[in-house]
């Protein structure tokens, strides 16, 4: 379970003009962090910097003993070189691939047994040959989650994964996400707008406002402990 040290800066364009996102934080290995804050506060940008999809203007990102980004030493690992799984808000399932193929594509080395195991864990054996267009919102979310587990990443990044799902399904999927987090023995960071969801799931809640951490809350979050 790798710890994460992050101290990064990046300019953001918000409705109130240009702002500097500056996040400095140490996250213990195995933690489940929920990032909360208003739209445009910098939550998604932070996930994208961790994944290497956007580059900070300066700073450092360290995961365990491995440096992923260091502006002074000019180190910047590509997204392909970082051991992450990123679950996008729109799930980003590949429309041309079936459920099974989506999961298989995410694997670094082909392992049919593991694909079958993941299909079983998420109850999707019957949907294995279906294309994403034929799936409901909840089913898509489960495929995205199964796909995220397929590469056994060290870090699980989740960008509002439950935003488009109804209340009942949402509670079920919260449990599935926590199960996935434990199954991977990963360090996870999830963006959410729902405070009750954050309290239910997180070991620590980080509130971001105008590009800065304004509040850390570890008091009420104990589902995983």
């Amino acid at each position, binding site marked *: 379970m790798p710890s994460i040290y992050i101290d990064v800066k990046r300019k953001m364009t918000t409705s109130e003009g240009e702002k500097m996102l500056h996040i400095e934080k140490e996250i213990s290995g195995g933690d489940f962090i929920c990032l909360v804050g208003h739209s445009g506060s910098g939550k998604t940008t932070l996930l994208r910097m961790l994944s290497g999809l956007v580059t900070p203007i300066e700073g450092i990102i360290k995961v365990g003993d491995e440096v992923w980004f260091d502006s002074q030493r000019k180190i910047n690992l*590509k997204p*392909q070189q970082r051991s992450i799984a990123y679950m*996008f808000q729109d799930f980003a399932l590949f429309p041309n691939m079936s459920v099974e193929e989506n999961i298989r*594509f995410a694997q670094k080395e082909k392992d049919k047994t593991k694909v079958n195991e993941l299909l079983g864990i998420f109850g999707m054996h019957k949907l294995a040959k279906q294309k994403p267009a034929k799936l409901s919102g909840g089913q898509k979310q489960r495929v995205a989650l199964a796909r995220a587990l397929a590469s056994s990443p060290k870090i699980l990044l989740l960008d509002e994964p439950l935003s488009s799902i109804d209340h009942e399904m949402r509670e079920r999927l919260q449990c599935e996400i926590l199960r996935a987090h434990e199954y991977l023995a990963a360090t996870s960071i999830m963006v959410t707008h729902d405070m009750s969801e954050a309290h239910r799931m997180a070991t620590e809640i980080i509130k971001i406002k105008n590009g800065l951490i304004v509040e850390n809350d570890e008091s009420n979050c104990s589902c995983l402990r």
Partner: protein
Amino acid sequence: MNSDFIQTLVTTGKLAFWTTLILFLLGLPIAYFLAYSRFRLKAIIEALISMPMVLPPTVLGFYILVAYSPQNWFGQMMEQWFDVRLAFSFGGVLIASIICSLPFMIQPLQNGLASLPSSLKEASYTMGKSSLTTFFRVLLPNIRGSIIIAVAMTFAHCVGEFGIVLMVGGNMPGTTRVASIALYDEVQALNYKAANQYALVLFLASFVVLTIIYSINKKTV
């Protein structure tokens, strides 16, 4: 059907086939670059590629013919390096046809790629896949409709090409004589029966291609 008619249709088909194939292979990397690059002078490249859509083919044909002349560096280079004279040859017409059909291939491919959510490409990268694997396994299969439209439009445009072929290739049976030029020629000779044969083939080819395009559009909407 006489042998001239068959020969002209073969030349027309050959020109359209090679133009489409070469342009598809060239068009993929160009469309990828135009869809994702933030290069400052991108607008100039896009304008240049789209020029054949608004420019009279004779203008383009004239400049290409000038470029092919052994008195100019391109024509000189082709003659010295490859011992080839491009003016009034099938190769010359093929190059001209490729230039003239650029927008018909590149624009649909570029629009197809640009319309895909960026999260698809990004998701593939975060799974450790290279740009090349992402392009062939994720991006291309998801713009199948755009690929079919690009190929069909390019092929159809080539089949009906007139001005640029006449300027660069003339009207040489078996070499540069294509159906649209043959049709014009037959009308000039008051040979309406033969003209009608060419016209019918061009009409049917265009109709089939457009029907394919509209069927695909309907499926993707």
